[in-house]
């Protein structure tokens, strides 16, 4: 494997760490479409997409020209705009039919025009339609060829909205498509907590995968940008990230650079199991305080993470905390067995069980009959008895008057049910349904019952005879050992 160091420098503050007062052009924003449906987006003033409004993002909740998203307060709710997606002529006929009149552009329901992750897709899309594009461009004439200055002012559509949020590792994680198994917030929040990762720490991460953990770790270690090594007194937090899958490295590298994280995350294309963690000769070794291994066989990588090896990547001045993330119990057993044989201490294993909880009001009762999302059976014994009496009454009425009003009665009865439903429906409009019923909580319909097993361990700093002698000289005990009465007895007061 090569030692490709994919690090670029980027002077801009990261949008993950510093939020501008308003949304700005060329900055990363997260569009919140609905729960669990988030869309990362770089806001652009101009785009060559051919929309009259300039850059436009189409979602299933409408089209959003970027001009409506730039220069507003973060967290703003934004209405969809009327965008002429049809005359751009990019779409093939069949996709147009599928999507209906309001359909998004590009042939997929959700397309981020400038999202780096889909840009690739877009490009290949371009290649496909390249042959037909020139002709259509000609047909469209002026509107396409015009510089973005002439962008049309967006007109609000009648419905549809999104929210614009500043990016965070949590929103970024939630917006990831599954390139690999993603380390989600319940896991990484616990892992970073247990690994004692603090601003200024150095953490090794292998493999980086889709970058979910990478972003969270970068936030945890961040204590200032280190564009140069001028301020040597302060140890700047770093994430040393390794990934062996080359396309993933390329994608992640681009993302990190556009997120302003290149100074914090040092991404290396490498199979750490075979090649270890050493960096190129001009880089000092990582000196990691914490290690996170999301690998199929973490014990193979662990042999490169021992003290006393040449160019050991561990911080020699402090304890090193380790977490491995493995879905299978066999992996855990091999890992733990390796750790036990190699001086690691504080070995423990656990799995994080996270549940999201649904809260709703459950309405039960006969008065709910015919309404949506309710249980229209009797709510109380009294209600049940009343209803039974009513039925009994009607039945006896019916039997006694059967001869006289047989047909009429039946009609009346059917009517009365329809009437009752109508009446209930009318009443429901004036009722405060959001305050009625029992407030209940239950787990959300889908539960992630297993993500992975987490093995934690700690490697204390190396301690030799010389260190002990040094400490002994600094903190002598001669006096104490000689005279018992000279010192106060400490401890015990807290324990």
């Amino acid at each position, binding site marked *: 494997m090569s030692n490709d160091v994919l690090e670029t420098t980027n*002077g801009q503050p990261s949008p993950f760490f*510093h*939020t501008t007062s308003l949304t700005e052009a060329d900055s990363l924003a997260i569009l919140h479409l609905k729960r669990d449906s988030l869309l990362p987006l770089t806001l652009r003033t101009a785009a060559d997409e051919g929309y009259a409004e300039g850059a436009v993002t189409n979602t299933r909740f409408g089209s959003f020209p970027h001009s409506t998203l730039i220069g507003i307060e*973060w*967290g703003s709710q934004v209405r969809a705009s009327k965008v002429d997606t049809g005359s751009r002529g990019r779409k093939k006929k069949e996709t147009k039919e599928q999507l*209906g009149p*309001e359909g998004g552009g590009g042939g997929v329901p959700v397309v981020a025009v400038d999202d780096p992750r889909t840009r690739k897709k877009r490009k290949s899309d371009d290649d496909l339609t390249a042959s037909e594009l020139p002709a259509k461009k000609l047909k469209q004439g002026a509107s396409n060829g015009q510089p973005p200055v002439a962008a049309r002012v967006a007109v609000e559509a*009648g419905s549809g*909205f999104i*929210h*614009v*949020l*500043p990016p965070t*590792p949590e929103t970024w994680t939630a917006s990831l498509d599954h390139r690999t198994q993603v380390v989600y*917030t*319940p896991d*990484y*929040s*616990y892992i970073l*907590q247990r690994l*004692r990762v*603090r*601003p200024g720490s150095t953490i090794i991460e292998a493999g980086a995968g889709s970058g979910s953990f990478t972003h969270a770790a970068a*936030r945890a270690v*961040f*204590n*200032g*940008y280190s564009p140069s090594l001028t301020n040597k*007194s302060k140890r700047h937090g770093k994430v040393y990230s390794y990934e062996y899958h080359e396309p993933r490295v390329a994608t992640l590298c681009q993302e990190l650079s556009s997120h302003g994280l290149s100074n914090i995350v040092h991404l290396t294309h490498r199979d750490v199991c075979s090649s270890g963690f050493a960096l190129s000769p001009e880089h000092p070794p990582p000196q990691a305080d914490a290690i996170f291994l999301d690998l199929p066989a973490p014990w193979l990588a662990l042999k490169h993470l021992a003290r006393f090896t040449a160019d050991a990547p561990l911080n020699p*001045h*402090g*304890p090193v905390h380790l977490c491995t993330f493995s879905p299978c119990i066999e992996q855990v057993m*091999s890992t733990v067995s390796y750790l036990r*044989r190699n*001086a690691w*201490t*504080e070995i423990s*294993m*656990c799995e*994080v*069980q996270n549940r999201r*909880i649904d*809260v*709703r*009001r459950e309405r039960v009762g006969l008065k709910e009959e015919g309404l949506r999302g309710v249980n229209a059976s009797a709510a109380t014994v009294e209600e049940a008895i009343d209803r039974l009496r009513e039925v009994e009454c009607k039945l006896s009425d019916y039997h006694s008057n059967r001869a006289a009003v047989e047909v009429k009665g039946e009609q009346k009865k059917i009517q009365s049910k329809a009437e009752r439903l109508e009446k209930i429906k009318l009443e429901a409009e004036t009722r405060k*349904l*959001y305050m009625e019923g029992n407030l209940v*909580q239950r787990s959300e319909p889908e539960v992630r019952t297993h993500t992975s097993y987490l*093995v934690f361990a700690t490697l204390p*700093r190396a*301690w030799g005879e010389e260190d002990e002698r040094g400490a002994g000289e*600094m*903190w002598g*005990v001669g006096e*104490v050992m000689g005279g018992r009465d000279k010192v106060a*007895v*400490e*401890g*015990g007061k*807290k324990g």
Partner: protein
Amino acid sequence: MSTVHSHIRPNAYLFLRLPSDLLKLIEIKPNTIIDTGKLGSFPSNLLLGRPYYYKYEILDKTESEAYSRLRIVPPSELNAEILTEDATPSESRGDPATPTVNGVPEAYDLVGEDGTVVMKNNRLTIDDASRQALSQQEIEELKKSSGGKEIIEKILANHAGLEEKTTFSKAKYTLRKTKKYLKRFTVLPMDMGNLIDYVMVKEAPRIMEMTEESLGLVTAWSNAHYSGCDGIVEKADELCAGGGRWLVIDDTGGLVVAALAERMDLLFRDPEEAQDSADQVNGTATSNRALETFALEVESAQPGANGGLAENGQETTDTPTKATSHLDFPIPARTDTITLLHPAVQPNVSLLKYFGYDTNQPDPLHPLHTHLSTLSWLQLLQPESDVTYREPEHTADHILRTWKSGKRGTYWKKRRRWERCKAIVDDARRGEFDGLVLASNMDPTSILPHTIPLIRGGGHVVIFSPTPEPLVKVMDLYSKERRAAYINHISKEEIPDPVDFPVDPRMLLAPTLQTSRAKEWQVLPGRTHPMMTSRGGAEGYVFTARKVVPLEGGVMAKGNYAGKKRKAVEAVEGGAEG
């Protein structure tokens, strides 16, 4: 900056994990004796300068010395013991089958095909104290005369049934005796995880039974992080003018504040610096951070604040020494700050003292001194009725000069206290916080109406509760049905009834309630399974949401992905999915 827990430093708080697995909290002072109770005592100097996470053994006292010495159990020796621990059973009934390469036994059957027992089991084990030939008295005498190792060996040799035991139960027996007679403890640093473990056993309600996994969720979703401006070239003015501020309400004795401070690089003093300043008491070695902050203060001071001091011929800020003298009531920093709202006159953040910050005697060089601001609910909501917020009487210069220095000092101290209080209150009331973190026994529905407006758009709202009920109520206040009803009122230009709508349900996006539990496992070859018992009590629930800026008037949702029926439903449910 060197690693915080690189070695044991004087006057630090730390934990000793005793053989019983209980943590003992110690403040380690030089030239004192640490008494561990049952294990014995030893001089603190034998731990100072030594590394954390090692197992230390208390050696037998020699005749010539007053106290026992310590020995770090070297990794090689520990290894040997750990590997025998590998075979430590807890609930196992059988001998280990031959482990394969990765430790999984090849066979696990106790009974052979013909029905005979092919493995040794505990069917014939006799549980009786008489199996041990040594009497308690003899053991007690042994303890006086010989070391831990010898005792264990003798005890094992005198156990009649040892050979009948399975390998696992033999190992378990040995381990139990080892724990009992070897005087060993592990030294663990003061950090959030160990502190939680410690408090959880002693007095869990003090930290609202907050587990480490809950704390992890809270800190992650709060998005708390370092937001200093060093190294920023572009847009520095904008980004440094009051970014990175979190509003906190904390009834966990300061645990939440400590965790957030840790994420914001405010919890630990640079250990080297701390060492320096301890050496030169109140010397001129001001921390970079304090100086930085101070420089900011001077630049940004309102004319009435520090400027006033300078005019009045009081000591000005020429040198770091003089700067330090003003750090008793510092004007709070402008970025990377925690603002703590408390119900009582004084905040309860007593746990912070374990990290070197005691609110009663604050260390002026601790980052929290300038980055933690505290104010009471009264100061936030009705500042004019608070004594500290009221400006103390102004005394003219020429009168001041006639005063005795003590009286003058008190006067300036009062002024400085007022200036700090005013700066904190005004800053809090300005709002625009990046996040709200709430872990309180108070009813969240009474807190939110006052605090949500103080959070900036896109900011984070995180509420922790040991039990779900208070948060279920909050979820209900922000339910989509209630929001739709609220929007409905607004679009009809009605004013929604504050009884029905204690909060504006449009202000929070994606309210989510979750709970996490880390399930511990025992990992041993052939006997890997979840722990048989674990802590009960509160599960710990976390509510998260983002503060948003809603559109004026009615809003129609739209979904154009499905059939007509679905579309109609979406439109009715309004702004819906949040």
